C-alpha cells in the first residue's frame, strides 16, 4: 500500500477513492456527481492550464458587482461569479459595546443558505454550511486593521453601532467563499450609517438624535477589508475560482484571505485530503499574482475607498435609488426546452 495509490496525496492522478467518506469538501455544499471519465477530463485539462470553460488556472470568471440593491438596509450588494449568486445586506443597529472592548462597535455575521440555491438546503439543511461560512467570516475580520471598529462607537461602554452582516445565498455554482467575501466588502463599502448626535439635558439624561439627512452619514473605510481567495488543489496544480465540477475533483483546497496590501489575515485548509507543504507555500506565494488580477478586474472602489459602481453614483440620494436587481441582465439559456412551456401554456388556454 502506498498513500499515493489511494489518492490521499492529491498531486497524483488518482482523483477519487470509491469508498471514502461521503462528505465533499465542506459540509453538504451543493455537490455534483461526476463520473470517473469526467474527472479525468477536467484533470487533464488543468495539467495543461486549460480549464473546461477556457480559463487558465489562475483566471477568475467574470465578477458582477451591484451595490445598493435593497433599499431598507444600511448597505447592500449582490455579487455574481458564474452561477454563484450572493446577496449581502448590512444593517446597523444600536447596541451595547462588548465588555472586552468598551470603545468599539462590533460586527455580527449570519449566512442563510436558502433553499433557492439547492433543495438540499431546505429547512435546517443549510445551517451547517451557514455557520461554517459565518465562522470563516468572523475569523477574517478578527484583527485590528480589517475594519475600524472604533468609528462604530457612539458612547464608550454605553452605545455603539452593531453591524449585522447578513449573507443570503441565492445560487451556488462553486467558489462560495470568494464570492461572499467580495459581496461583504462591497456591501460594507455601500453602507451609510447615519450620524448620531448625543444630546444631554441638565439631569444628565442622554438622548440621541439620528440625522435624517441621507447625505449626513458615515462611510466605512473598506480599504483593508480582506478578500478570500480559495485555491483548490487539482492534480499537480492549483486553480482559483473553481466551479462545482472542479470542486468535486479537488480533495483539498486552501482558503487564503488577503488585504489589498497582500497581508494574510486568515488561512485554512478545507476538504478531506492532505497537502504537500511545498504546494501550500506555492499557494501562499500565488496570492500576489491573483491580487493584481483582482484589483485590475474590480472597480476602483476596492483600493481608493470611493468611487462609483453600477447602480450607484455619488449624485443619487441614498435609500431612494432604484435598484437594478435582476434587470438588464443577459438571458440565461435554459436547458428546459421552451417549446414545452409554450405548449403547456397554449394547451391550458384552450382547455379553459
Amino acid at each position, binding site marked *: 500500500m502506498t*498513500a499515493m495509490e489511494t489518492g490521499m496525496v492529491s498531486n497524483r492522478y488518482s482523483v477519487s477513492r470509491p*469508498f471514502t*467518506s461521503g462528505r465533499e469538501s465542506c459540509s453538504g455544499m451543493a455537490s455534483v456527481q461526476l463520473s470517473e471519465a469526467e474527472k479525468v477530463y477536467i484533470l487533464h485539462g488543468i495539467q495543461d492550464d486549460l480549464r473546461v470553460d477556457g480559463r487558465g488556472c489562475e483566471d477568475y470568471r467574470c465578477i458582477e458587482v451591484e451595490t445598493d440593491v435593497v433599499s431598507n438596509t444600511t448597505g447592500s450588494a449582490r455579487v455574481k461569479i458564474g452561477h454563484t449568486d450572493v446577496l449581502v445586506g448590512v444593517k446597523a443597529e444600536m447596541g451595547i459595546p462588548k465588555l472586552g472592548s468598551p470603545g468599539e462597535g462590533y460586527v455580527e455575521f449570519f449566512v442563510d443558505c436558502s433553499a433557492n440555491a439547492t433543495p438540499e438546503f431546505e429547512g435546517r439543511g443549510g445551517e451547517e454550511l451557514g455557520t461554517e461560512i459565518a465562522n470563516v467570516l468572523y475569523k477574517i475580520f478578527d484583527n485590528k486593521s480589517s475594519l475600524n471598529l472604533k468609528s462604530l462607537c457612539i458612547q464608550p461602554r454605553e452605545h455603539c453601532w452593531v453591524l449585522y452582516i447578513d449573507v443570503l445565498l441565492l445560487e451556488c455554482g462553486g467558489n462560495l467563499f470568494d464570492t461572499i467575501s467580495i459581496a461583504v466588502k462591497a456591501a460594507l463599502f455601500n453602507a451609510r450609517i447615519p450620524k448620531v448626535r448625543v444630546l444631554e439635558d441638565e439631569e444628565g439624561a442622554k438622548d440621541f438624535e439620528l440625522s435624517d439627512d441621507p447625505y449626513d452619514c458615515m462611510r466605512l473605510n473598506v480599504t483593508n477589508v480582506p478578500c478570500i481567495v480559495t485555491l483548490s488543489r487539482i492534480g499537480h496544480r492549483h486553480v482559483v475560482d473553481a466551479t462545482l465540477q472542479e470542486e468535486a475533483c479537488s480533495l483539498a483546497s486552501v482558503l487564503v484571505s488577503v488585504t489589498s496590501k497582500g497581508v494574510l489575515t486568515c*488561512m*485554512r485548509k478545507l476538504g478531506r485530503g492532505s497537502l504537500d507543504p511545498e504546494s*501550500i507555500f506555492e499557494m501562499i506565494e500565488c496570492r500576489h499574482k491573483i491580487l493584481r488580477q483582482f484589483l485590475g478586474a474590480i472597480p476602483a472602489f476596492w483600493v481608493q475607498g470611493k468611487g462609483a459602481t453600477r447602480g450607484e453614483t455619488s449624485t443619487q440620494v441614498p435609500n431612494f435609488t432604484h435598484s437594478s436587481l435582476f434587470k438588464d441582465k443577459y438571458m440565461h439559456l435554459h436547458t428546459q426546452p421552451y417549446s414545452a412551456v409554450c405548449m403547456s401554456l397554449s394547451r391550458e388556454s384552450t382547455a379553459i
Partner: protein
Amino acid sequence: MAPDSRRVRGPEESQSPLLYVPCSEAVAEVPRAVFARAGLLSQASGSAYLEMGGTKVLCAVWGPRGAPGRCRLQCELRWAPFSRRGPRSSPRQAGLLLQESLEAAVRLERYPRAELAVWALVLEERGCGLPLAVSAASLALADAGIEMYDLAVGGGLSRGPGGQLQPDPLDTEEESGATVYLSLLPALNQVSGLVCSGEWEGDSAVEAIKLCMEGCQRLYPVLQQSLVKATKRKIPEPQSG
C-alpha cells in the same frame, strides 16, 4: 423605563470583574514538556491522554460500529467548563477542524458502512488545546487499531508582540493575535490541517508554517513510543521456551 423594585440595581458605571483578573505573566519553557499515554480507558475502543505544559487533553475513540452509508468520522471536541479561567468562549466548530485534520490520516475506505466516533475533551487549557487534541485523537485512533496512513501530529505557534515566533504558545500568548495551528503527517510529509489567523505580512506565514512543522516532527517520536508501550501492555509477554 419602570425601575425594577425587586432588584438592587448596580451603579450606572459597572463592569465585569473579570476584566481585572490579573493575567499570569508566565513564560513557556521551550519546548514544553510532553507526557503521552495511550490506552488508558477500558470502555473505549481506543484512548489517549496527552499533556503539554499544563494543557491536558483526553481522547476516546469508539468504533468502527455499524452505520448506513459510507464511513464517517464523527468528531467532537469540547472544553471542560473548568478548563480555563475567565469567560469561556468555546471555539466555534472545533470538532470540524479536528475532523478535517484527521480525515486525511485515517483509511476510511477500509470501513464501509461503519462509523468512527472520536470524542476529545480538553481538561485544562494553557494554550495549544486544538493541536494537542489532534495528536491525542490520532493516538487514540491508532490505539483502537484503526488503519491509518500515519499519525496526524498537531502543532501550534504564535507571534509575540515583538514579532518573534513562539512555538507551542501559552494561552496568554495565543491571545496576542497571530496564531498558526497545523497538523502534519510526519512520515509522508503532508499537511492535513491548517488554520492561520491574525495578520501575516510577506513571507512570515511561510516561515511560521515551517517552524510549526519542525515542532510536529519533534513530537512524533514521543507519540510513537507511547503507542509501542500501550501495545506491549495489551499483548502479554510471549512465553519463553
